[in-house]
């Protein structure tokens, strides 16, 4: 797998540095070839706050042909852009706002209006030549696409023309593609180019973003939409780093950041297959904080280090293509085989939603331990989920809950022993354990296991520390608290127009709005249901029109069918608990009074 | 007649003697033999007796036998008359070519036909007579007559013929003129003489030629330089040719000298000036001309007048001791060296003289190499320094001793045209002319680094990506 790693925002940029760390000799004054990153990945840093790009000298401006590059996402919008004026006047959103005020809903709203406002669409098409969204279109065509294999072939030429027209007709845009991208394109489009040339381009996208930041996750879905307009099955993954507890350096409150994280996760995990990302890797910054005692540089290094087995290109002989991105994507989307009776019983088509993938990573010197110690180091001891940070789990979870495991090893292990060791701990049958072996070096061996959806299947798990349910329950609860206590902060942004405020109010507080949905999510977590996030929400769309997804979309755990009675009892006891809480009573009162 | 006489003599003289002898001799014998016997039978017995007596007399040495011999001489007589009218004679030449040059070899064959039989023949005496071109009378060629004896005839076609040659005349090389030469045969038998018909020969002469006339001499020779006049001589007759070289002055009017040689054709004729003393010091600076006259005794020709030689002036110069001064006492091979020598004009008759001076250096690797272009200097009576500041050596001369030579176009006080000097101190052995910390030293290193870097970049781009 050779992804184009897109770091979004501050955290994404810092982590991206690790991915793009030069493996080559540093000659300082000159570079004879391209920058060599681990796994030959390419990368770009997307940022909305120009001031953040000024204070560093690692990234250069993409428009000037620098590499590694950064791209200001709104650089494609001129200061006197008609589109910008329209959006500002009608909605109160500034397309060129620095950092977008770190509000996830700001970005979400801003991208929605480009999808839903026909007049804005027309203005955009006229001004940006067929591009419906100057931000995501610009980021995709100028920033990301040239690094990918999508820049080759017929669709490449069509899209290139579109992209170049976008650039030509837009104020402030560079009138040329930066040289490194042009050369990559030329490499890709060399007459008779074989795999050797095309293999230098990336076969997937991996977004790096902090969940809870500002710029971060708001861009992922809009950019993904652009990709999906060209290639429905182009692999796109996101690595979300869940923000740590407490206030951050910019004094953004914990609740605000968790709200941003929740909104981001919600949006990412409610786009169906073929419309959004193919998987969300989750890491918890709190675990990293505790492990590395707040050393952000070490934390970033650990994040990158955990993914090295995934990115390493040294497959076992004969297995060169085992882990190319489309193959991994297919494995990640794999569901259980069904028979006709089950389909009939269900009565409706299953809609697939992107899975959550929890990385578990461990490394050990080559001379110490064996495969069992490696696996144990990744998962931790069985049943020992807390305290966090003592094992290789990078997000709280119970490994035994996973329905699939993708195991990436670097070392000299046989497939059988890997499968045996992993199965011994997470109790998955071997056909649900996908193994990707890479050749090790002589110093260390390591293992990355991506656990797919390691949650659900039992109620009350939200109370067990160290589970995924527990962590999500925590952040959703805090988000709800923040929403409840900060209506003015949420809606009182000075530039918002009334239409925007109305829509936001409806989105957050309206019927079947975010609050309701988050409460539903809590219920699902408590009941052990899957998936957690089901119904996509829009700020400017008609939420009522959107049909709720009434059924589990990825996997129907067999346990639910058998434990319906227990479930009913569980519901009853929960209702009793709920009715006891003051909060619940207040909400009932409000409903009755409204 | 003679026969009858002889018969009578025998009968009347010998028989009585024989009888006497028989008597004398036979006194011891009997007379019973019949004393005066009868007729014929007694004649035969008498002849036998006579013969026996003669034998006895011969065996005893009887003096009377001589007397008998005298009596027995019988005067010659012929049975027929001696024919003097039908003698035939003639001359022939071999090879049969009547047009000859003086040097052509030939053989004169005289043939005589004698009509008389052998018994009455006489010995014939032959003489060859020749009338040479320009002469008025025949002369006898041979000193001793050729003789044909009576029996030296062969019968050829019913004739008695005999031939002989005259070895005294085999060519006309002594002739001084050309023209018709007449030969005839004079035959004599002691009493009669005959003259044959004339054999006329045409003596011709082809004149000699002189070609390829050159002067072999140094460029601008001095009077005492080896100057040789050369010419190629040819004569179709092979005659000995007389060649005279005439040396004239530049105006071609006055002959200064001449020398003569005789030479056989086919040779290259040469006249060495030094050998004949054609030129002396007074001739320095003058121009001369020359021509040849040549003849084979019959014809004399001369060539056109040719120019040469032009003698150059010869001045005597004085040359001092040559010196060499290197730029650096280390005597590196790549440095300049100043070669100098003092020279002046010693010829009091010339206030100044232009002399071409050359410089040569001698090393084991480059023996007597021209070190510099020649220069022409004007020498006066005052000494002046002639110098060459050059870089005469190359790397092969490092660590070698060297010598040098000044060559000049005039003779010096030692009568030589050059002066040599050997330098004792050898050239420095250092080969590389630059230091490490110098433009060239650092430049070389930088060039190597750049080349290595360039190759590295190219190989990396081509094979390592």
């Amino acid at each position, binding site marked *: 797998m050779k992804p184009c790693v897109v770091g979004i925002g501050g955290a994404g940029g810092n982590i991206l540095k690790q991915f793009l760390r030069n493996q080559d000799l540093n000659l300082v004054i000159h570079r004879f070839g391209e920058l060599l990153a681990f796994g030959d990945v390419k990368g770009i840093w997307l940022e909305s706050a120009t001031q953040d790009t000024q204070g560093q000298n690692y990234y250069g401006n993409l428009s000037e042909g620098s590499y590694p590059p950064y791209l200001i996402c709104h650089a494609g919008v001129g200061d006197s852009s008609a589109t910008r004026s329209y959006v500002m006047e009608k909605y109160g959103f500034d397309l060129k706002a620095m950092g977008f005020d770190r509000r996830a809903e700001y970005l979400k709203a801003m991208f929605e209006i480009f999808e839903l406002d026909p007049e804005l669409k027309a203005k955009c098409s006229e001004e940006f030549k067929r591009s419906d969204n100057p931000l995501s279109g610009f980021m995709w065509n100028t920033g990301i696409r040239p690094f990918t294999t999508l820049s080759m072939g017929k669709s490449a030429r069509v899209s290139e023309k579109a992209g170049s027209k976008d650039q030509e007709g837009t104020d402030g845009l560079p009138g040329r593609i930066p040289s490194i991208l042009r050369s990559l394109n030329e490499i890709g489009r060399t007459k008779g180019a074989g795999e050797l040339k095309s293999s230098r381009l990336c076969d997937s996208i991996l977004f790096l973003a902090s969940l809870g930041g500002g710029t971060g996750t708001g861009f992922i879905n809009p950019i993904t939409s652009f990709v999906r307009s060209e290639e429905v099955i182009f692999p796109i993954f996101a690595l979300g780093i869940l923000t740590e507890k407490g206030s951050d350096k910019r004094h953004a409150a914990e609740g605000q950041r968790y709200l941003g994280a929740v909104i981001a996760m919600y949006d990412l995990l409610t786009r169906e297959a073929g419309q959004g990302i193919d998987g969300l890797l989750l890491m918890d910054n709190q675990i990293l904080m505790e492990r590395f005692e707040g050393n952000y540089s070490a934390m970033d290094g650990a994040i990158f280090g955990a993914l090295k087995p995934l990115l390493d290109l040294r497959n*076992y*002989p004969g297995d060169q293509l085992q882990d190319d991105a489309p193959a991994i994507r297919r494995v990640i989307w794999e569901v259980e085989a069904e028979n006709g009776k089950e389909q009939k019983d269900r009565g409706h088509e299953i809609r697939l939603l992107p899975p959550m993938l929890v990385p578990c990573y461990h490394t050990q010197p080559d001379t110490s331990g064996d495969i069992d110690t490696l696996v144990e180091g990744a998962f931790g001891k069985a049943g020992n989920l807390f305290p966090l940070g003592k094992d290789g789990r990078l997000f709280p979870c119970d490994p035994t809950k996973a329905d699939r495991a993708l195991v990436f090893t670097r070392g000299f292990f*046989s497939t059988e022993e890997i499968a045996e060791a992993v199965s011994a701990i997470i109790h998955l049958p071997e056909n649900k354990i996908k193994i990707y072996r890479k050749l090790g*070096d002589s110093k260390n061996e390591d293992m990355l296991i991506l656990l797919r959806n390691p949650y659900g299947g039992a109620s009350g798990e939200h109370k067990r520390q160290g589970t995924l349910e527990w962590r999500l329950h925590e952040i959703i609860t805090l988000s709800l608290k923040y929403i409840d206590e900060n209506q003015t902060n949420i809606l009182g942004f000075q530039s918002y127009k009334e239409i925007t405020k109305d829509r936001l109010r409806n989105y957050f507080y309206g019927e079947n709005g975010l609050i309701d949905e988050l409460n539903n999510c809590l219920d699902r977590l408590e009941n052990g249901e899957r998936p957690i996030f089901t119904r996509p929400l829009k700020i400017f769309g008609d939420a009522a029109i959107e049909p709720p997804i009434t059924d589990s979309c990825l996997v129907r755990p067999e346990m639910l069918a058998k434990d319906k009675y227990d479930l009913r009892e569980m519901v009853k006891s929960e209702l009793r608990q709920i009715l006891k809480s003051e909060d619940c009573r207040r909400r009932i009162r409000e409903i009755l009074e409204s | 007649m003679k026969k009858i006489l002889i018969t009578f003599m025998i009968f009347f003289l010998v028989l009585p003697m024989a009888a006497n002898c028989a008597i004398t001799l036979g006194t011891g014998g009997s007379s019973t033999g019949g004393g005066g016997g009868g007729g014929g039978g007694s004649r035969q017995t008498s002849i036998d007796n006579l013969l026996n007596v003669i034998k006895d007399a011969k065996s005893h040495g009887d003096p009377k036998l001589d007397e008998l011999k005298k009596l027995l001489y019988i005067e010659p007589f012929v049975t027929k008359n001696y024919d003097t009218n039908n003698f035939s004679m003639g001359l022939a030449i071999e090879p049969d070519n009547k047009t000859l040059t003086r040097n052509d070899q030939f053989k004169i064959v005289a043939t005589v036909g004698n009509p008389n039989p052998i018994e009455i023949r006489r010995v014939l005496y032959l003489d060859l007579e020749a009338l040479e071109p320009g002469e008025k009378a025949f002369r006898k060629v041979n000193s001793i007559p050729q003789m044909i004896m009576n029996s030296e005839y062969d019968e050829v076609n019913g004739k008695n013929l005999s031939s002989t040659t005259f070895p005294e005349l085999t060519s006309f090389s002594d002739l001084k003129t050309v023209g018709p030469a007449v030969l005839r045969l004079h035959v004599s038998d002691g009493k009669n003489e005959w003259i044959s018909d004339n054999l006329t020969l045409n003596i011709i002469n082809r004149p000699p030629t002189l070609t390829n006339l050159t002067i072999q001499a140094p460029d601008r020779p001095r009077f005492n330089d080896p100057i040789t006049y050369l010419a190629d001589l040819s004569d179709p007759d092979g005659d000995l040719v007389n060649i005279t070289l005439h040396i004239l002055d530049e105006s071609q009017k006055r002959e200064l000298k001449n020398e003569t040689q005789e030479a056989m054709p086919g040779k290259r004729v040469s006249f060495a000036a030094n050998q004949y003393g054609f030129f002396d010091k007074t001739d320095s600076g003058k121009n001369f001309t020359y021509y040849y006259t040549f003849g084979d005794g019959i014809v004399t020709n001369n060539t056109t007048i040719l120019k040469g030689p032009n003698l150059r002036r010869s001045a005597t110069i004085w040359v001092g001791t040559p010196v060499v001064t290197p730029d650096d006492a280390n005597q590196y091979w790549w440095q300049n060296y100043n070669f100098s020598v003092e020279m002046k004009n010693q010829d009091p008759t010339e206030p100044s003289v232009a002399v071409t001076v050359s410089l040569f250096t001698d090393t084991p690797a480059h023996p007597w190499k021209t070190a510099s272009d020649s220069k022409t200097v004007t020498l006066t009576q005052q000494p002046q320094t002639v110098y060459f500041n050059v870089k005469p050596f190359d790397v092969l001369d490092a660590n070698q001793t060297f010598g040098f030579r000044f060559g000049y176009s005039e003779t010096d006080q030692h009568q030589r045209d050059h002066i040599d000097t050997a330098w004792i101190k050898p050239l420095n052995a250092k080969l590389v002319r630059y230091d490490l910390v110098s433009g060239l030293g650092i430049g070389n290193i930088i060039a190597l*680094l750049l080349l290595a870097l360039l190759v590295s970049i190219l*190989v990396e781009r081509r094979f390592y990506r």
Partner: protein
Amino acid sequence: MSETVPGLYLLAVMMGMVILSLIFHTHYFVRVTDHVKKTSDRNFQRKDLMAALHIPQGSNFNTMMLFSWILFLVAFAFLYFMTPDILGTWDYFRVPQVASDSFGLVYFGAAVILIPGILVALFVPQCYGYYQISAQLKQVTLLTPVFLLASIACSVYLGTIYPEFNPFYWYVGYVALLISLALMLTPIAKGYIEEMRT
């Protein structure tokens, strides 16, 4: 052999290092192949394993290693062929016309670069592509051209003072050459030692 420096013995030391590295390199592959065979579930060809083991080291590193190996040959040639009597009659100064030329060193060096240099460069540095070379080690190998330059400078100095000879500079040149060789061979040795510890 030169009376003043034991050139051939010291040459044997360098050759020994090279041969030892070759042995390490070969045995490294043997061990890795053994590891892979034990854990692989299918047969494979050697070239597949070589392709799988290959690690791109980057254009900068490759260029520097090529540059270093080429310069190494030049430095070796200068040290041994510009010092008389070390290799008998094989002596740069036996061709005085080249040796005395203003750019004689360039000609000599260019001949070394273009003939054996390219041949070595095509094959030898490829071995680095099979070892994990840390960034720090790569930075350390950047010292190799510095030492080689020092060696070349010493050799050039000896050439300029020829026929005089200064053993001190020869030894300095040799030591610099030896250090540079050690630096170039360190990645192989290190990789092998790490492999041997497994």
